[in-house]
């Protein structure tokens, strides 16, 4: 039996829907799951019919932020969620907008938010559904993370979750884990210029990878790379406050980065920095292919 999915969209760019199409196992996925509605894939029902009369559905997927006045096919998205919530086994918020509000929490809709959260703050509107909710944040979602989260529901596997309902299997890691620029961070080589394979973007260019939960460098994007690997700072797109302000600059107090690696006390960070700075490691001052 295929697991029935309803892909419902709030205020969104459709980036999550397109990202899932990049899942390497998508052909098998379509054997195991069936969309009763999807923004691109043909489905048995039209949106107009689904929002009028509830049809059988196992998992409700919500992409995009949610606002009282926002409608799909002439019906308020809040009402559509209320219609399907009692029926489904799980509700999965797909992407950072649906989870925390994301970019479109700042849209002209006054009450735009995620399903359970507005940034870190709980939203009361759907609080009664919280036991049913799994959050897959990311702007966009990583296709493997979403696909495997959906498989865990299908296979009825118990999933350990963090306080935002994100599966720990993917969100217990930081984006820093597995970054090819790690050595420059570990040894505090704080010189970075865009357009180079060398250097770490943490010190000057706003990279949030050391304190952002996600598997971007653990399970590579499009099976080949990641933003930080090519040299783009991590923008913290899986986190409640995405997007923060002044994204290409590292905020510092007295020359010390304001946000430090997850769980690392400032004293530890400063001590380590002091030690490593006492040494000059030749290899890290050369171009990687010249060393």
């Amino acid at each position, binding site marked *: 039996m295929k697991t029935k999915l309803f892909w419902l*969209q709030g*205020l*969104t*760019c*459709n*980036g*999550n*829907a*397109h*990202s899932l*199409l*990049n899942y*390497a196992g*998508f*052909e098998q996925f*379509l054997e195991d799951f069936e969309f009763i509605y999807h*923004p*691109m*894939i*043909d489905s048995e029902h*039209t*949106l*107009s019919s689904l929002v009028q009369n509830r049809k059988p559905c196992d998992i409700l997927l919500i992409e995009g932020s949610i606002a009282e006045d926002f*409608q*799909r*096919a*002439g019906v308020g998205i809040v009402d559509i969620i209320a219609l399907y919530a009692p029926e489904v086994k799980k509700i999965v918020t797909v992407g950072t907008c649906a989870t925390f509000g994301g*970019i*479109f929490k*700042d*849209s*002209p809709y006054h009450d735009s938010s995620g399903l359970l959260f507005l940034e870190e703050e709980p939203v009361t509107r759907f609080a009664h559904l919280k036991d049913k909710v799994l959050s897959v944040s990311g*702007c*966009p979602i990583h296709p493997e993370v979403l696909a495997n989260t959906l498989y865990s529901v299908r296979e009825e596997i118990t999933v350990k979750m963090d306080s935002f309902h994100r599966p720990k299997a993917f969100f217990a890691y930081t984006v820093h884990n597995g970054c090819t620029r790690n050595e420059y961070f570990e040894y505090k080589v704080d010189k970075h*210029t*865009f*357009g*180079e*394979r060398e250097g770490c973007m943490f010190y000057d260019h706003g990279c949030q990878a050391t304190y952002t939960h996600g598997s*971007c460098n653990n399970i590579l*994007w*499009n*099976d*080949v*790379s*990641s*933003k*930080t*690997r*090519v*040299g*783009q700072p991590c*923008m913290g*797109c899986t986190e409640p406050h995405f*997007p923060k*302000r*002044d*994204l*290409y*600059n590292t905020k510092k107090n007295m020359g010390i980065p304001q946000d430090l690696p997850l769980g690392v006390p400032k004293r530890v960070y400063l001590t380590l920095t002091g030690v490593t700075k006492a040494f000059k490691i030749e290899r890290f001052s050369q171009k990687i292919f010249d060393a």
Partner: protein
Amino acid sequence: MPKTHKIEKLIEKIEGEATLHFHMKEKKISFVDIVFASSRGIEQILQNKPALDALVINPRVCGICGHAHLIATVKALEDCYEDIEISNKAKIIRELTLNFEIIQNHFKWFYLTIMPLLKEEQNVMRAAKPSQLMSKAIAHLAGQYPHNSYAIVGGVVCDPSPMDMLKVQHLLQETIRFFEAHLVHGESEKLLVCEKIEELLARGGDLPHILNKIVDQELQHCGKSFDRFIVFGENSYFQRGKASKTRIQPNISEVYLDVEANSNSLAKNVLYKQRYYEVGPLSRAMMLKTPLIKDAHRRFGDSLMSRILARVCETLQLLNHSLSLIKEIDLDEPSYIKPSTDIQHITGEGVGAVEAARGSLIHKVQLVEGTITSYQLITPTQWNLSQGTQENPGVSQQAMLGLEEIETAELVFKSFDVCSVCTTH
């Protein structure tokens, strides 16, 4: 006086939704209202943000052409400088990744939208497989797809190795093989120089199949509009200019753009010197005088037949052109040249125009000391879906006039490759 009645149809699966209100007179469409009921207010979201944050926000305008928004953003920001140097290497890399995005879009549009509208079963994997290959090629250079911000003021953040470029080349070759195995069977090189549409229709593959079906159903002349085309983005392949039928005028300026609000829809109209123009692959092919498209246009005008053909042919043209562009990169050049002035000291205005999958995309920005004080997006779908009046209809409105079947009108409407999120942004 014959009576007019209205038929309302919700158009779904267009990166969102729109409602078409068909005015029917003597069983024919006499006018169409195109209504978009939602906007996310990206232009307001950008207000008072530091300039570079636009590089992160703007790709999120659209999940299928967000990369075009990134490139338009970076060009608009760079245009705020009086003097800024971008290496040829960075220019080529930006052009490549944008080509790859256009290619993935066209595969998705053909297989997910057009084939089902012509009563063929939707083959999701024929859309997904080549899209995955092109997304992977983008990821080699830009880290991921969708939604990267690898183009920055001064160049690109990546420094690809010769090995990375080899991988990109192989992905392009694999996508060409996919094209030859499914879209148009056989050697694709001959298709690029083919001058008669009969040569294409005689071949096997999903494109000739669909085009033959259109001819069998006598739809090949449906969807004609004003036969006016415009292209703003220019690169090593696309040519800037406008055309009325086959008469090309290469000199155009963003100064003559008009953006007008609508009373009943959140989409704004776009005009050039007070006239509506079609943008997109057909317009680009008209500028380039692509032989096969010229033949289609001569016989079927700016109909849905020409539009579908132009889009699929462009897929192949861009695949081949990208292969030759790779050879032109000098990897020893810098990827990034630090601008002499930090953007936080820049006050000025800039325009960035690129060709996105659906046509010309224009971003206009004003900065005061590096902070965005005004941002305007003009998207391809705004051009094509502008909602004019009965006296002066927009391009897609004109294309649907006189049709009898609502189903055919939906096909004509979607032949423009409609994107709801871009239209209202």
